[in-house]
C-alpha cells in the first residue's frame, strides 16, 4: 500500500525544506511522512513556551539542533504583565541538557533566563553555537562568564534589549585566547563598561565577525581602534556618538575607520550624538541598507543631510525630530525603502507638535513604492490621510499607528477614524499586522472582520463601543493568531460566542476590559484545550462576585495543560487546582467569619 518513495529519498527531499510552515504541512500528509519528517527536523519554533511541554517536543523531534521560544505576551513590553508572571526557560534547558546534547542554537524572546540556565547551557551543549536573548531578563554578567568560558564554538551572542545585571565588564575576558569563532556580538543593552582591551583583542582574533553592537558605555574615541580590528563588519552598533568637546582628530580617525569598512551595510547605536561627527559616516552612506537613528537626538536638518546620501536604504528607524520635512526628504532619496519606524522623542509631552504630522507619513508612502512595514507615532491623523495611504500602497503588510493621546478623532472632521482604518484593511489585502489607535467605534471592527482576511496580529487600545466590536474580529478574521486588547468595553458575550475561535489562535490578551470572572470560569471549564489565565493583583477573584470584571486575562491554546509555575496573582480557570483553591479560600473565609 505504500506507493511512496523509499524513506531515504524522502529524507533527502525533506532536508531541503527549511521553513517551519512547510515542515508542519509535510507532517500532516501521512503517518510515514510524519515519522520521517519528525526524525529529521532540526529547527523548531515555539511561539508560546506554555503551549507544549519540553518533554513532548524532545520526544517528537529527537534530532533538534535549534530551538526558538517565546515567553511573555507582547504587552509585557509595556509593563502590562506583572513581574513574576512566568516565562522561565530553566525547565526547557534542563530537559534538553539531558536529551538533546547536540543542541546548537537557542533563541529566546521575552523569557526569564537565570544565571543557572546560562551555566547549564554552557556545560551541557558541547557544540553550542548561537545564543539570542531578546527582551529577556533574570541573568547577570556572571552567566555570561560561563558562556564565554565554555562555549568554544560560539558564533553568536545577542542580548538585544535584555535586562542584564551588570556586575562586571570583565566577563569578556573569559573568552579564551584560542576562541576565534565569533560572528555576531550584540551587547548594546549592557549598562556598564566592558573591558575594552579584552574586546579589542577578541575582535582582532575573530576573522568571521560580521555583527558588532556596542553599548553606550563604549566611548567614541575608542571606536576607530575597535573598527580597525574588524574592517569586514557588515553590521555595526556604535557606542556613545559624541565626546565632551568636538575633537578634529577623533573625527578624522573615525572617517578613516569607517572608510576602511567596505562591507558595512547596517548602522545603529548613536546614543547621544554630537552632530559634528556625523560627516564621518558620509563615505559609507551609499552602501547603507539599514539605519537606526532612533536614539539619536539630532535635528531634522542633520538627519536629512545624512539620509540624503543613503539611496539604498531599506530600513529606517528615527525619532520624530525628523519632522514632516525630513520624511519628505526620505521620500525623495530612499526609493527602495521597505520599513519605516518613527518613534516619539517625548511621549509624555502633551503639546501638539506640528512638525511631525500625518503629512510626513503620506509623503513617504507616496515616494517609496516598496514601503510595506510601518510603525508611526504621531499626535494627529485624519481619515483622508489613511484612505490616501490605503490607495497608494495596497502592498502594505504591517501597519502600526500610534496616536499618542487615546480617543483622538480625525483632527479635520472630528469624526472617529473608522473609515480611515477601514480603507486600510479594504485595500491592503495582504495586511498581516495592524495596530489601531485614535477614536474608534465598533464600525472599525466591522471593517476589519469583513476585509482583513490575511490579518495575523491585531493590537487594540481604547477603542470600540460594545461586544459587537470583538465579535466582528473573532468571527471575521480567518487567519488571526494573536489578538491583544486593552481598555476596551468588550465583555462576556463576544468571548463566549467565539470560544471555538480561540483554539485556532496562539493567544488572546485582554486587560482593563469588561470580561467577568464568571465568564472566565465558564470558558476554562468548557474549553480544555485552552489555558484561561486570570491575572489580578488586587486579590483572588473568588473573593468578589462572579460578575466583576477581571483585571487581566490571557488565553492561549496549549497541549500541555495548565502550567505549574504560576505566581500568586495568576489563576488558571477550569483547572482542578483552581477548584481546590476555591475550596481553600472558602474554608479560610469561613474561619474568619467565626472569629
Amino acid at each position, binding site marked *: 500500500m505504500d506507493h511512496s518513495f523509499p524513506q531515504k529519498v524522502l529524507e533527502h527531499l525533506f532536508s531541503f525544506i527549511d521553513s517551519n510552515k512547510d515542515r508542519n504541512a509535510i507532517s500532516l500528509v501521512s503517518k510515514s511522512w510524519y515519522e520521517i519528517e519528525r526524525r529529521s527536523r532540526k529547527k523548531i519554533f515555539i511561539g508560546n513556551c506554555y503551549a507544549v511541554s519540553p518533554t513532548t517536543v524532545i520526544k517528537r523531534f529527537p534530532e533538534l539542533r535549534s530551538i526558538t521560544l517565546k515567553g511573555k505576551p507582547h*504587552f509585557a513590553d509595556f509593563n502590562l504583565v506583572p513581574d513574576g508572571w512566568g516565562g522561565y526557560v530553566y525547565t526547557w534547558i534542563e530537559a534538553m541538557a539531558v536529551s538533546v546534547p547536540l543542541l546548537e542554537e537557542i533563541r529566546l524572546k521575552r523569557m526569564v533566563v537565570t544565571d543557572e540556565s546560562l551555566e547549564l547551557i554552557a556545560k551541557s551543549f558541547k557544540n553550542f553555537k548561537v545564543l539570542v536573548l531578546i527582551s529577556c531578563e533574570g541573568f547577570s554578567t556572571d552567566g555570561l562568564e560561563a558562556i564565554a568560558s565554555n562555549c568554544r564554538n560560539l558564533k553568536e551572542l545577542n542580548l538585544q534589549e535584555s535586562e542584564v545585571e551588570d556586575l562586571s565588564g570583565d566577563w569578556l575576558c573569559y573568552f579564551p585566547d584560542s576562541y576565534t569563532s565569533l560572528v555576531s556580538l550584540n551587547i548594546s543593552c549592557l549598562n556598564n563598561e566592558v573591558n575594552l582591551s579584552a574586546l579589542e583583542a577578541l575582535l582582532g582574533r575573530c576573522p568571521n565577525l560580521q555583527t558588532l553592537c556596542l553599548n553606550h558605555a563604549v566611548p567614541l574615541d575608542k571606536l576607530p581602534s575597535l573598527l580597525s580590528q574588524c574592517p569586514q563588519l557588515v553590521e555595526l552598533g556604535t557606542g556613545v556618538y559624541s565626546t565632551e568637546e568636538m575633537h578634529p582628530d577623533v573625527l578624522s580617525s573615525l572617517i578613516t575607520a569607517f572608510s576602511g569598512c567596505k562591507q558595512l551595510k547596517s548602522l545603529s547605536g548613536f546614543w547621544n550624538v554630537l552632530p559634528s561627527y556625523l560627516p564621518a559616516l558620509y563615505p559609507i552612506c551609499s552602501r547603507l541598507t539599514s539605519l537606526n537613528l532612533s536614539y539619536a537626538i539630532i535635528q531634522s536638518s542633520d538627519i536629512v543631510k545624512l539620509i540624503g546620501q543613503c539611496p539604498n536604504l531599506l530600513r529606517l528607524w528615527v525619532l520624530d525630530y525628523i519632522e514632516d520635512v525630513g520624511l519628505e526628504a526620505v521620500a525623495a532619496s530612499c526609493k527602495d525603502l521597505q520599513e519605516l519606524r518613527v518613534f516619539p522623542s517625548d*511621549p509624555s509631552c502633551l503639546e501638539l507638535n506640528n512638525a511631525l504630522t500625518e503629512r510626513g507619513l503620506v509623503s513617504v508612502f507616496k515616494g517609496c513604492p516598496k514601503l510595506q512595514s510601518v510603525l508611526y507615532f504621531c499626535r494627529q491623523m485624519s481619515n483622508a490621510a489613511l484612505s490616501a495611504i490605503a490607495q497608494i500602497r495596497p502592498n502594505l503588510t504591517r501597519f502600526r499607528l*500610534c496616536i499618542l493621546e487615546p480617543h483622538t478623532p480625525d483632527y479635520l472632521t472630528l469624526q472617529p477614524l473608522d473609515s480611515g482604518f477601514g480603507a486600510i484593511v479594504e485595500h491592503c489585502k495582504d495586511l498581516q499586522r495592524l495596530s489601531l489607535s485614535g477614536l474608534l467605534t465598533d464600525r472599525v471592527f466591522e471593517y476589519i472582520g469583513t476585509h482583513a482576511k490575511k490579518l495575523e496580529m491585531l493590537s487594540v487600545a481604547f477603542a*470600540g463601543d460594545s461586544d459587537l466590536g470583538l465579535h466582528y474580529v473573532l468571527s471575521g478574521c480567518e487567519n488571526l493568531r494573536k489578538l491583544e486588547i486593552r481598555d476596551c468595553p468588550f465583555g462576556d458575550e463576544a468571548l463566549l460566542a467565539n470560544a471555538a475561535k480561540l483554539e485556532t489562535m496562539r493567544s488572546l490578551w485582554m486587560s482593563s476590559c469588561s470580561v467577568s470572572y464568571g465568564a472566565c470560569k465558564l470558558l476554562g471549564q468548557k474549553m480544555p484545550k485552552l489555558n484561561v489565565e486570570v491575572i489580578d493583583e488586587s486579590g483572588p477573584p473568588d473573593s*468578589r462576585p462572579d460578575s466583576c470584571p477581571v*483585571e487581566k486575562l490571557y488565553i492561549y491554546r496549549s497541549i500541555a495543560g495548565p502550567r505549574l509555575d504560576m505566581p500568586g496573582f495568576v489563576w488558571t480557570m477550569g483547572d482542578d487546582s483552581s477548584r481546590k483553591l476555591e475550596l481553600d479560600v472558602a474554608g479560610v473565609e469561613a474561619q474568619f467569619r467565626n472569629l
Partner: protein
Amino acid sequence: MENSLVNHETELNLKATELRLGLPGCDEVNKLQCNFSILRSNKRSSSEISTEVDSMSKSKLNTSNGSEITSHDDQDNAPPSKAQIVGWPPIRSYRKNNLQQKKGESEVGMYVKVSMAGAPYLRKIDLKFYKSYSELLKVLENMFKCTFGEYSEREGYNGSEFVPTYEDKDGDWMLIGDVPWEMFMSSCKRLRIMKGSEAKGLGCF
C-alpha cells in the same frame, strides 16, 4: 478684545464638555469600575486620562489650533495629581530608559542640590540642561564665583582653590570628571564645591 477672548474660552469649554459625555460604552466601563472598592483607581487606566487631558485642554484654549479635542471619561474617579496611563504610549521600557531628554523640553528635570563650603544657602540646578562637564563646570563657576582649574585624570583639579565633587548613588563623594558624562548623570545625587584643602583625599584613589 478681552470680552471676545472670554467668550471664545467659554465656547471651547462647552465643546470639550460635550465630547466628554460622548461615546456610548465609556460610561458603562465607568459604572463597572465604581462597583468594586478593591480596585485601585490607578489600575483602571481609562480614568486617568481625564486629569492629563484637562490640563491639556486648558493650554489648548490659548492656541489657535484647538482642534485636538479628545473625549474622555467621567472624571469622578480621576486621582487628584497628574497620573500616567500604565503602558501607554506603547513604547518598550528599554527604549524609554535609554532615550535622553532634549535640552529644556523635558517636563521632569533632573534637579540636584549644589552646596558650597562657606556659602549660607544651597542652589539647585537641572543637570538635564547640560551635555558635558565643561558646560556644567562653567555654570558652577559662574554661580559660585569661583574657578576650578584644569582637570586631569591623574591629579584631579590639582592646584585650584575649589574642587567640584558629587555624591553618587552609593553615598560616596566623587570627583566630578572621572566617569563618562552619562554615567555621572545617572549616578549623581547632589553636588558640592569643596575647598581644595577639603578635597585633598579625593584625587588620590
